[in-house]
């Protein structure tokens, strides 16, 4: 596989590119299900594990754990899946897994919370209004607060002419959100 490819894919994953996620998901799904069958794991369980592996992959892409991944994405994804199988189902023979486990232990944060924190009531409300924001606001806030890009990086990703414009756009988005929340409290 092309050396460039994993990096590129990881970058696309970080940015939340749906097509990339879909491609990775579909390319590896059947292989993983078949692999799981070797350990008598039925298709439903295999799919659950696989989905978690996909989420973990994406989380780790975002938190930068796999920026320097040497293997390709499929290998990595399978490693996560296998690791999960052996942990969840306590499969006996781990012999063939050693190499993969090294890979996993080096590059993976299994403690990622796949659901995120439990939200307070205020945060629930905030979430409701966040959903109502326009796409532009959402992508700026998402890139900045969740995906951890700096304003300089976001300026490049979203093609802003300069950082100032981006910053004032971000401020307007925050203000819009704050106004929606305040309006809610003003009413009730």
């Amino acid at each position, binding site marked *: 596989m092309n050396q460039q490819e994993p990096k590129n894919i990881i970058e696309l994953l970080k940015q939340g590119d749906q097509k990339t996620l879909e491609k990775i998901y579909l390319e590896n799904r059947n292989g993983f299900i078949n692999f799981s069958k070797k350990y008598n794991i039925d298709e439903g369980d295999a799919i659950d594990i696989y989905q978690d592996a996909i989420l973990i992959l994406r989380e780790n892409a975002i938190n930068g754990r796999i920026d320097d991944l040497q293997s390709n994405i499929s290998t990595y994804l399978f490693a996560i899946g296998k690791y999960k199988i052996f942990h969840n189902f306590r499969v006996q023979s781990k012999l063939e897994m050693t190499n993969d486990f090294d890979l996993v232990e080096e590059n993976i944060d299994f403690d990622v919370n796949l659901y995120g924190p439990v939200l307070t009531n*205020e945060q629930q409300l905030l979430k409701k209004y966040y959903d109502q924001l326009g796409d532009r606001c959402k992508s700026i806030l998402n890139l900045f607060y969740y995906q951890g890009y700096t304003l300089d990086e976001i300026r490049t990703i979203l093609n802003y002419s300069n950082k100032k414009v981006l910053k004032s756009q971000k401020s307007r988005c925050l203000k819009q*959100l704050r106004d929606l929340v305040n309006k809610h409290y003003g009413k009730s």
Partner: protein
Amino acid sequence: MENHNLIDRYFENSLSPKEQKQFNNLLQNDLKFKAEFQFQKDLKQVIEVNQKEGLRETVSKIEALAQKDSRMMMLPKKWIVAASLLLITGLATWTVKSTYFPSNDAIYEEYFQLERNTVQPVVRGESINTIEYKAFAAYEARDFYKAINLFNSVQNPEDSNILFYKGLCFLAVNKPENAIALFNQLTASELNTVQTEGLSDKANWYLALAYLKNNETDKTIEQLTTIVNRPPPGYKKNEAEKILNYLK
């Protein structure tokens, strides 16, 4: 504005030690700053949850897509395989059956041929007014029902030739039972009178075909065996052997 920059830099993880001090200071002493920071911190968690929910949803959708795809891919594949197997088996069976195990009807169609009228030559333009002549004329004209009626009305209806050609007429109009009755008379009468050379041999052959047409396979085999066992050169002996091979 300056303070907002500090919050941004906090989220970017790029506060210098000096800025960090300033940041902590504001957080403790500036309620407005603290509220703003808390708001953005809340927002960060909200977006995280939102993103993770979204991702789960996306993954479920992709999975649904994959299952739909695999149904579309798997089922038709299965169906195609099943269908082609059926088709191949069907075709093969049909070919084998029709070649090696043809239906009685198929054999009959292949072997049944009307006997030429050798009894009463019909000459065009000549008009002979006997019923027998008219009957054979109708037979040659393939007007078999008319021929049957006329054969019934001839002066000598029990004549072997009349019985034989009437039998052929019944075969021709798909009434093998009637034909069987007639040919049986002929083959049974063989010992008594053989009016025409070879007629009983022919009758045997057509009796076999009549049984075949009537789907009485056992009797057909019996009849054909009789033909085969005749001393050579038996009439239609080879044909009888071939049909026997199909039927047995």
